[in-house]
């Protein structure tokens, strides 16, 4: 299946981040996590939020999902401010974050239990997803019996199971080895192409961001500001070969310069 043409040009904006600013209290005092961050993510786009550790990427994503409030500024989803968890949003967390006391199937059905949703009509979809990620037949296994890659694939199935239209992914593949990560990236692109989701993907890997994204929102170190918006000019479908193309390597260098050069908001 062909992937969407990318860049989401002309498509409706789904998420509007407007001057998002966040301070929070820690034991050592106040932390300024996010400073006047503004961006727009359009329908069907895959946008990566890239920055060094501790630059407020996760803070931003959690605010987008309604898990915590901003100190000032606002985030709109389909035109209405996000004040709490929204049913259109599916969140994928750092590490797989599976519940160890539930087997794979019970983990995947967890969102349905919380939402009081009958999983019956979704049964076929879940089976198809499990097949796609290669987890069919593992339904009765417990998380500790699965490898790290399998756990992360399960958590993606869990997130897609109830068919949310927006996916917020918080460094989901950060803990995986390079090979598994490549494999997961390809799988994600395939799922994205099949399911037509709007995705915001947080990562600290430049290569991962370039490989996945239509657009990359590059952040400065704390407090997190938007340093630059980088449009990825790679054609789709993406292949692993592209990671060694001159454009790719040139782009990696360019993004590195932006992050280390501490470029200001444009």
């Amino acid at each position, binding site marked *: 299946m062909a992937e969407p043409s990318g860049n989401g040009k002309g498509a409706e904006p789904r998420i509007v981040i407007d001057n998002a600013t966040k301070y929070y209290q820690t034991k050592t005092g106040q932390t300024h996590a996010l400073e006047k961050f503004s961006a727009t993510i359009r329908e069907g786009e895959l946008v990566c939020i890239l920055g060094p550790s501790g630059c407020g990427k996760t803070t931003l994503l959690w605010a987008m999902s309604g*898990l915590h409030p901003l100190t000032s500024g606002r985030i709109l989803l389909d035109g209405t401010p996000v004040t709490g968890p929204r049913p259109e949003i599916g*969140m994928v967390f750092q590490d797989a974050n599976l519940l160890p*006391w539930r087997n794979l199937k019970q983990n995947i059905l967890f969102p349905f239990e919380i939402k009081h949703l009958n999983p019956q009509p979704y049964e076929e979809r879940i089976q198809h997803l499990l097949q796609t990620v290669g987890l069919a037949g593992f339904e009765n296994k417990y998380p500790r019996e699965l490898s790290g890659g399998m756990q992360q694939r399960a958590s993606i199935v869990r997130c897609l199971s109830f068919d949310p239209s927006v996916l917020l992914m918080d460094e989901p593949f950060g803990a995986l080895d390079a090979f598994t990560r490549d494999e997961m990236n390809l799988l994600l692109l395939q799922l994205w192409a099949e399911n037509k989701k709007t995705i915001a993907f947080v990562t600290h890997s430049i290569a991962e961001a370039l490989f996945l994204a239509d657009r990359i929102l590059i952040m400065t170190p704390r407090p997190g500001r938007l340093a630059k918006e980088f449009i990825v000019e790679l054609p789709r479908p993406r292949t692993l070969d592209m990671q060694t193309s001159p454009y790719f390597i040139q782009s990696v260098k360019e993004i590195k310069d932006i992050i280390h050069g501490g470029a200001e908001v444009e």
Partner: protein
Amino acid sequence: MAERLIEQIPEFKKDTGVKPDQEGFIDWSALTSVPTAKNAREAFIIIATAIGVILLIEFTLRIFNVPSYILPTPSGILGSLFQSWEVFLPHLGVTLQELLIGYVIGAVIGMVLAGVITQFPFAEKMVTPYIILLVVTPMLALVPLLILKLGFGLEPRIVAVALAVGPMVMINSATGFRRTDLAKIALARSYGASTLQIFRKIRFPLALPMIIVGLMVGGIFGLLTAVGAEMVGGGEGLGNRLVYYSSLARMEPFFAIIVIIAIIGILMYILFYLIGKKWASWEA
């Protein structure tokens, strides 16, 4: 309370490298992974050794002609157990009754208190010293006072058992409920989970292994307290029989009673071992 929780979860903290599953947690595997026989051969050797030890004691006592009021033979104890079974039975009933009623009262109060108090960190700080005081003070010491207030019936002993079980269950369950895994709570909340749902689907299952440990340790403490309380006062129960037979130097029924008490303890242990295997094995 919902607002409180929102305040609690959201502030994202950087990974400290400490797995929440390992924080403040007593190794559960010590209770579930008791070494057991791998095959029939091993089982045979283990049982044969046990029989050998008992036979060795039996014949040593016989050869040296040790009188039964000093140390009775295993066969004598077993004989007494069968012979006086009907005499022991009502006392066993009394002890089990105290244990069961006191245990249920103590365990329920302990668990509920732990579940509620851990939601309010400051209240928890205020209450914890008293709970620790109750855990470390032998409730047996209170039995004479309880008898003074409640008479010589079952009541003072039931209260003593509940007082021994409750704090033990409470302190372990509280440790369990304190194991809040922010990422898992955030997961549930991202699907719009209510405070009650978070408690039922995340906090409680996360706490369950420690609750089971508390229930097991509480059970052992409850048995100890029931028997001890009977030794202190009242005219019935297995503990009372221990005092009675030892005062008459009738060591065979005395040891028979000890065997009965040990069997109750072992059965309790097996029960919680199986419960732990079923409900908490994800942790091991």
